[in-house]
């Protein structure tokens, strides 16, 4: 976006929305925006130049979810812009004017929130600018505004046959003075030309030719490389360091001591790695994390789950405890889940070039937040945001890994650059990324529920024993939201069911590992527990699992429609001999999803093969139908992978796994066929990116029961657990 602004003013509309327009040295810049808070200052969501090019700001960051295309598509649709003339511009600063409305205006790409967070803002921006163009055109031609039509970046007047391009309109004298005379109207669902259409993603050609540049690919002049040896246990620091050999290694420039590690900085990555291998470091042995073992951690969490310590209420309706105490037909169970790693294929990497005065820097990093990357840099350098030049790079996978308030990979690049007075790229190797990863927390969950005389589930108590993720990874946010931790508890609200006496509570346990949001956040384990539990209840009452859910969602027609739909989809394929099917209903946030998994089991090997998953999703209106399918399918495969394979174990405070050979993720020949239905409607768009995975683990567990009559209550369903269940 061009930076120089010569003229700027705001036009306040009757609706309370506002428009800001500006002339720039580069051409006429039309800045349109609308918001409940008309007192806000505005800047450029979109710019139309006299050459007809349309420039749209992309306020999120791209990690594969596709919103780099999807968000501009929304604005361009309401603007009636010619998509072929639209170029998309990454927002490279912590400019809260463009902040995510779903995250209190923080620049934060998480929670599958980009589309639903920005949907209204982008529509208003596009529609407002389109209205200005029509007003100015009407004045120019001396015709009624309502007679000015727009399409593909052109205005036209049918009666006279006149037309102009948008570039010509914004170049008219005094365009910036245009006042909108009537409230801005958004298009109807039927009028959309880009929203809901198959618009190819803009990033895909570069990602199909090796041309896409990620943070790890950055090369700048005079750049050095750093590789960091970290303390093997959280909280330990350097007791003694001998770096003589490292400093004597060919091309090594410096050895930099970091808060929790030692960086070898060299002219080549090869030399940085060679130098690191020669470091002789002994670490302190005082950290409390040294005593933690993941098996003990999970057992402690299990005891907290079944205990009676009151948790923080996540959602409550009626009086669940009283209802359960008086119930005659109740049942309870415990579900556990291990730590899980993001395993994004691009490991952490960042490049920093610190200014000579040490109080400013240009940085290149791939994260899910301009706000916290900027904050990391300002905190590390003790400076202000205006001194940080940010380059937000596409990410080789995010999945929650790149969300922290303090990003230590970026911190290390800054500290190394400051020490060496040259640009430095820090690259984590895969073992670094895994051993110093931050995980989906281990969790134990206690569930108790009761049915009434008609066999309908009417009382529910869900206790989730796990640490607070937010408290650890973003203490600032925790101050605002405590004790409600959406990252830990998501899904446990079970909001799609009508349960009159309901209680979900967070039994906050001690953190014994680094933890972070992970695809699906809490729903990755709360939905497993809830949906496996409901399946158990259905079996105990000898009710069809789908009918049992239907009886719980009599006031949820959209959800019931998904149950019906997915039942039909699966019924179209005969169940093969030796296989079983299981059902689960979850989704993510406001998005509902119903799914069926078909599996077979090799009893002696203890392995489960998932052959087919059918899934029906209602995420409101869909912006990019093909990308939605890709995201949902990716989510389903993530769910299969997490259910069957993924497990981090910790011994004496150290992560035991180090690479893809002992932290395994799903491969191509383990992937099920996935059939997807996406509801078509005109409702508010909701989340897509994390809608696919939460229902998969319980659907597999429930299929396992259908096939074997045994229950799997500990995720992942490793061979030893499968064999134990079958024993």
């Amino acid at each position: 976006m061009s930076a120089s602004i010569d003229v700027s003013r705001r036009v306040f509309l009757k609706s309370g929305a506002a428009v800001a327009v500006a002339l720039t040295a580069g051409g006429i810049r039309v800045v349109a925006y609308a918001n409940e808070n008309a007192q806000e200052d505005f800047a450029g969501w979109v710019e139309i130049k006299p050459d007809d090019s349309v420039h749209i700001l992309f306020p999120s960051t791209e990690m594969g979810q596709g919103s780099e295309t999807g968000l501009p598509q929304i604005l361009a649709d309401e603007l009636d812009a010619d998509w072929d003339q639209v170029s998309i511009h990454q927002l490279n600063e912590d400019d809260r004017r463009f902040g995510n409305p779903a995250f209190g205006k923080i620049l934060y790409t998480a929670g599958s929130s980009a589309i639903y967070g920005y949907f209204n803002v982008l529509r208003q921006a596009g529609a407002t600018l389109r209205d200005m163009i029509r007003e100015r055109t009407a004045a120019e031609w001396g015709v009624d505004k309502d007679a000015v039509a727009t399409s593909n970046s052109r205005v036209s007047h049918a009666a006279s046959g006149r037309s102009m391009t948008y570039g010509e309109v914004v170049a008219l004298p005094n365009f910036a003075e245009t006042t909108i005379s009537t409230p801005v109207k958004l298009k109807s669902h039927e009028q959309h030309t880009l929203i809901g259409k198959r618009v190819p993603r803009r990033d895909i050609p570069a990602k199909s030719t090796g041309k896409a540049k990620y943070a790890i690919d950055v090369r700048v002049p005079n750049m050095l490389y750093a590789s960091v040896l970290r303390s093997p246990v959280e909280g330990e620091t350097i007791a003694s360091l001998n770096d003589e050999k490292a400093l004597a290694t060919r091309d090594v420039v410096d050895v930099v001591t970091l808060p929790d590690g030692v960086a070898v900085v060299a002219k080549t990555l090869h030399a940085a790695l060679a130098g690191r291998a020669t470091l002789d470091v002994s670490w302190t042995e005082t950290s409390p994390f040294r005593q933690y073992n993941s098996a003990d951690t999970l057992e402690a969490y299990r005891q907290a789950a079944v205990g009676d310590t009151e948790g923080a209420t996540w959602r409550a309706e009626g009086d669940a405890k009283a209802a359960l105490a008086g119930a005659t037909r109740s049942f309870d169970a415990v579900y556990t889940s291990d730590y899980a790693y993001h395993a994004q294929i691009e490991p952490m990497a960042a490049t920093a070039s610190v200014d000579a005065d040490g109080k400013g820097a240009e940085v290149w990093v791939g994260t899910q937040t301009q706000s916290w990357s900027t904050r990391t840099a300002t905190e590390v350098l003790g400076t202000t945001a205006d001194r940080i030049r940010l380059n937000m790079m596409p990410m080789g996978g995010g999945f929650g890994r790149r969300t922290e308030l303090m990003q230590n990979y970026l911190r290390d690049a800054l500290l190394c650059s400051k020490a060496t007075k040259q640009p430095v790229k820090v690259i984590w190797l895969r073992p670094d990324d895994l051993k110093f990863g931050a995980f989906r927390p281990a969790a134990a969950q206690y569930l108790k529920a009761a049915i009434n005389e008609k066999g309908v589930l009417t009382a529910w108590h869900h206790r989730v024993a796990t640490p607070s993720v937010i408290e650890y990874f973003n203490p600032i946010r925790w101050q605002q939201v405590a004790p409600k931790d959406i990252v830990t508890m998501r899904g446990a609200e079970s909001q799609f069911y009508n349960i009159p006496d309901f209680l979900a509570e967070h039994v906050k346990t001690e953190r014994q590992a680094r933890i972070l949001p992970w695809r699906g956040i809490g729903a990755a384990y709360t939905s497993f527990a809830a949906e496996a539990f409901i399946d158990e209840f259905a079996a105990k009452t000898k009710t069809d699992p789908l009918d049992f859910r239907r009886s719980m969602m009599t006031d949820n027609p959209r959800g019931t429609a998904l149950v019906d739909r997915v039942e039909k989809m699966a019924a179209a394929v005969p169940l093969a001999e030796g296989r079983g099917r299981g059902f689960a209903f979850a989704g993510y946030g406001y998005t509902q999803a119903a799914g069926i998994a078909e599996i077979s089991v090799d009893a002696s090997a203890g392995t489960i093969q998932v052959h087919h998953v059918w899934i029906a999703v209602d995420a409101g209106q869909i912006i990019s139908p093909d990308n939605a399918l890709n995201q949902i399918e990716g989510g389903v495969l993530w769910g299969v992978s997490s259910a069957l394979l993924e497990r981090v174990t910790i011994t004496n405070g150290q992560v035991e796994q180090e690479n893809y050979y002992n932290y395994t993720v799903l491969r191509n020949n383990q992937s099920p066929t996935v059939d997807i239905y996406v509801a078509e409607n005109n409702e508010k768009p909701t989340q897509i990116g994390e809608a696919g995975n939460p229902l998969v683990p319980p659907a597999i567990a429930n299929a396992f029961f259908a096939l074997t009559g045994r229950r799997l209550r500990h995720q992942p369903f490793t061979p030893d657990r499968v064999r134990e269940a079958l024993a």
Partner: protein
Amino acid sequence: MISFMLNGERVETDADPDTLLLIFLREELGLTGTKYGCGAAMCGACMVHMQGAPMFSCQITLAGVAGLSIKTIEGLSENDDHPLQKAWIEEQVPQCGYCQSGQIMRAAALLDSNPTPSEEDIRNWMSTNLCRCGTYNRIVKAVQRAAAEMSA
């Protein structure tokens, strides 16, 4: 001095012969289409062709490629129009895209040796390569599409 053929051109270097080919390609030559993912031949993001066969470039040093012929994603086609690249775009395969150079190089080696692979052939062959976004089924479709175009 080590010399080898890279994307049809001779490369000569006095870099440390122990340097991994992957690191040399990326950091010395700037051919960053080939990716680092694991350094352990477990993910396939670094896949190149050596003498026409698929090879994990994280597993071989400069000394190991002396006198040999290497092809990377940058050398797969002259105008980014290899049938696989076109199919990848047509099927809208990539999400984050980080693994896809390696996937395409792996698939290209398959079609060189087996122009009409079955779905099972494709899945097994492609299982050396991880995709964390979960695009495996689209990868299969894209390989099938490219195979059909190449044998048409």
